[in-house]
């Protein structure tokens, strides 16, 4: 069987890399396999001791060990949120191309379903994108279309018009004009 300090570090590595929390059971499986016939009780004890060590060890560190519903995970202590907020603010404050294209398609082609957006864009539209647009108040659900699967239709909101200073959707440049002029007159979006 592996030694306590080794187990502690192995668990540390696993928790720091895992995308989801890891339960005691998962940890035990991950650690046992290496030897084969470890004593279950002994392994469980070793894991508990390691988790305690890690917990103590985090006292003077920016992260902590937290137990949530599905197991253990490492997370940054809440008092460091202000730094994280700054980091996020510093990031290029822009929406992704996927999001802008989705919004543009909804504006010009409403009412439009997710499938129809995907057809034009040629790639999947993430739920996250649509949720962001709804949260931002730019689009809304218009009801389901009478098609197999009853897909939701989306359209723009009044707030969308306000935000972009449009009196009505008619103020959006007509497609043909847009296509002709887009390449020449519109500079690349500044980064």
């Amino acid at each position, binding site marked *: 069987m592996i030694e306590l300090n080794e187990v502690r570090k192995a668990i540390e590595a696993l928790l720091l890399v895992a995308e989801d929390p890891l339960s005691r059971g998962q940890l035990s499986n991950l650690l046992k396999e290496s030897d084969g016939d470890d004593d279950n009780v002994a392994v469980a004890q070793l894991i508990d001791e390691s988790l305690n060590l890690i917990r103590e060890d985090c006292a003077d560190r920016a992260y902590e060990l937290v137990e949530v519903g599905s197991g253990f995970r490492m997370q940054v202590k809440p008092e460091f949120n202000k730094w994280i907020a700054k980091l996020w*603010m510093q990031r290029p404050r822009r929406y992704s191309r996927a999001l802008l*294209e989705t919004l543009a398609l909804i504006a010009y082609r*409403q009412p439009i379903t997710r499938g129809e957006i995907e057809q034009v864009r040629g790639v999947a539209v993430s739920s996250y994108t649509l949720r962001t647009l709804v949260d931002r108040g730019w689009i*809304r659900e218009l009801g389901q279309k*009478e098609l197999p699967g009853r897909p939701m239709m989306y359209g723009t909101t009044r707030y969308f018009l306000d935000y972009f200073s449009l009196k009505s959707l008619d103020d959006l440049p007509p497609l*043909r004009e847009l296509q002709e002029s887009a390449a020449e007159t519109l500079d690349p979006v500044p980064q």
Partner: protein
Amino acid sequence: MSDTVDEQALAEDSLVVQHDYPIPDDLFIPPDALIVILEAFEGPLDLLLYLIRRKNLDILDIPVAEVTEQYMAYIDVLTSLRLDLAGDYLVMAATLAELKSRMLLPRRNEDSEEEEDPRAELVRRLLEYEVFQKAAEGIDELPRVDRDIFVVSVERSDEPIEIEPPKVELRELLVAFSEVLERDNLRSPHSIDVESLSVRERMTSLLSLLSVKDGYLSFLELINVSERREGAVVTLLALLELLRDGLVSVVQHGSYEPIFVARTNEIG
């Protein structure tokens, strides 16, 4: 060789071939194996390098006749299997044939004492290609994220962080739209309808009006008198669009009876 084939599958094959050099010395090569081998070569230079290395030939003093013969034998087998040969292989075949004939010609020592070896250009290309073959192997061996390196990623706590959402300018939206249309045109050339946006907008507002009122609305209720004639036309066109899409249905109990409009589906 074009790599429209699944790159990943190809990668597995090429790695195998690269290390094992499985072409047998005798002439018989099982056709299946040959396809694998063909796909394993990255083009004529790769094939030539392989032929040279397999026979432990001196790359700087290539016996052109021998190599050409082997290369052509290989091309023949491929052709007999009716595999689509990339043009590059045929170009190389022509180059080799030309080299072979030039090597047969006696060297003229009249003008220059050291006439350049006719093979020089080919040798230069083979050496250069080999350098980058090795370089590619070198890159492949570099420690790589998610294979040899695992980056630590820790969640932040669940306490919300207040962040102002990014601002968007109308111009950005227009660029996004023209880009998506451009891509769409490239993929499936079709003309884009120039629709009146006011109709689209009206479709949206009719749909939400009908969902809010849940039930039937009379056609006249949908017409806003203050919008005058143009407004009525837009509403009518929007209604027709919605009808065509099966999103609304129109009911009239008899001639001259009021026309009612309803959403075709109940929104839960």
